[in-house]
């Protein structure tokens, strides 16, 4: 927490794989405690952008700054969660949540206590000692998010975290994530295919074009927080949804021009 500049800066990032341009001079600023969703057609480089910000993928050119510091190609600065929960079958709920500590300095009883408190607070209190296979898909994703929160990095990258869930569970999880987000001071970068999800959760929705990924639109979502289920059927929501869908579905036309 230093200064008042943007939390995350993606500065002129280009990624090329074997001659294929995945991201083309993409720049993006994300403010402190902002929730930004990225939508775009498949192959628009959303996941590549995530891998660059997380440090897994070094860009062909360009930089990534977190709190003004150059962290290009460095891991360990952000939390990261995928559609696959990637829970470890032989670790219990608490064991999975403390994975970050276990992999870096070793999990202490304090970490386990904090993990248990975090899990209890967000509806997993009765499942602290369950193995992942005994949990439902929604609960597994909750554990995966707890694991990401337990890293205590204040930037979270969530790559279609609810993409594999049924629509009922997915909506529950979105509302749950809203409550978690409104509780904590974290900056979230969220990738999704689901326009409703993007608008419901975010402060901004960034629309990417088909490959190579460029920013087509950057829409502020000014719906008041805290948000609930009623937002989904409100007129401003519908207007925003129409706008984003319009942008997404002219993408193939724009790309072939």
């Amino acid at each position: 927490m230093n200064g008042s500049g943007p939390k995350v800066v993606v500065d002129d990032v280009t990624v090329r794989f074997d001659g294929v341009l995945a991201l083309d001079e993409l720049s993006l600023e994300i403010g402190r405690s902002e929730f930004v969703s990225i939508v775009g057609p498949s192959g628009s480089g959303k996941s590549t952008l995530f891998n660059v910000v997380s440090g897994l993928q070094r860009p062909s050119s360009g930089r990534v700054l977190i709190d003004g510091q150059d962290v290009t190609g460095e891991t360990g600065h952000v939390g990261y969660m995928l559609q696959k929960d990637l829970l470890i079958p032989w670790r219990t709920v608490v064991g999975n949540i403390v994975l970050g500590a276990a992999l870096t300095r070793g999990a202490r009883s304090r970490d386990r206590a904090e993990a248990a408190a975090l899990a209890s607070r967000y509806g997993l209190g009765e499942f602290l000692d369950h193995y992942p296979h005994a949990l439902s898909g929604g609960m597994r994703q909750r554990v995966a998010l707890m694991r990401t929160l337990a890293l205590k990095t204040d930037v979270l990258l969530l790559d279609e975290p609810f993409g594999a869930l049924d629509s009922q569970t997915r909506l529950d999880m979105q509302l749950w994530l809203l409550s978690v987000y409104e509780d904590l001071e974290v900056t979230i970068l969220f990738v999704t295919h689901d326009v409703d999800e993007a608008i419901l959760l975010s402060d901004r929705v960034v629309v990417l074009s088909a490959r190579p990924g460029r920013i087509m639109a950057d829409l502020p979502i000014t719906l008041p927080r805290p948000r609930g289920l009623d937002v989904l059927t409100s007129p401003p929501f519908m207007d925003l949804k129409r706008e984003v869908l319009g942008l997404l579905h002219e993408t193939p036309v724009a790309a072939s021009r």
Partner: protein
Amino acid sequence: MSALLRKTAVRLVMAALAVGLIFGVWNLVIFAFDLKAYALPTPQDSVATIYDRWSTYQPLMLQTIKETVYGFLIGAAIGFFLGVAMSASKIVQRLIYPSLITSQAVPVVAVAAPLAILLGFGLVTKLVIVAWWVFFPVVVNVLDGLARVDRDLLNLARVMGAKRTRTFLAIQLPATLSPLFSGLKIGATYAVTAAVIGEWVASLQYGLGTYLNTAAASLDTRGVLGATILLTMIGITLFLIVAAMGIVATPWERRSTARRRTRPAGEMLVGHSVETPQT
């Protein structure tokens, strides 16, 4: 609990019936083909032989158990480390895998004799032969287990800033457990046969395998069968021990919760024996 008790009782009865079935068929064959006792003694006679000659069998059996267990442990350790080494480096894997497959395609019985000339007629040769048979299923299974670790999980570990050794200990090593025990169970069933073959070529110390040879040479079929039953028992026992260890080592495959309970948040740092009711 009573459900568990009933399940165990049913299993024991089934096991007894299975043994009874073998003895029944055995007796039936003797009766149907009118076999004389020197050709094939009854199972009752064979078991009685073990009882009568226990003082002969006992030291031989201990010797064979020693070879089987030590050879098994050496083979398992070699197999495990080879599996880990091969998964750590593709080059090592490409270099070693062909020789591993060759080692199993070569009939061990054929190399056993030259091996005895090379390594002597003592314990070493026998251990090498047992380990030779045991290590292969272990390598193959450990290698498979490590290859099946999700790439995305390893990437996640990297994003978390994980140290390589900790990733190995927390993610990769435990991932080998289930396949490791599959390999060990196969190895356990091979180990006794391997020990017997070892004793045939390297007979400095007498075991049940050497006894089989001398008993067969003197047409002592009762002695042969008594030794065979004992060898079978060694094999089954080793298998059961390994299987039981596997069950203890991989509780998440059978249970939905860990045995050790996390104390409820809040009371965490206070008392030290807060019991949570078992579900």
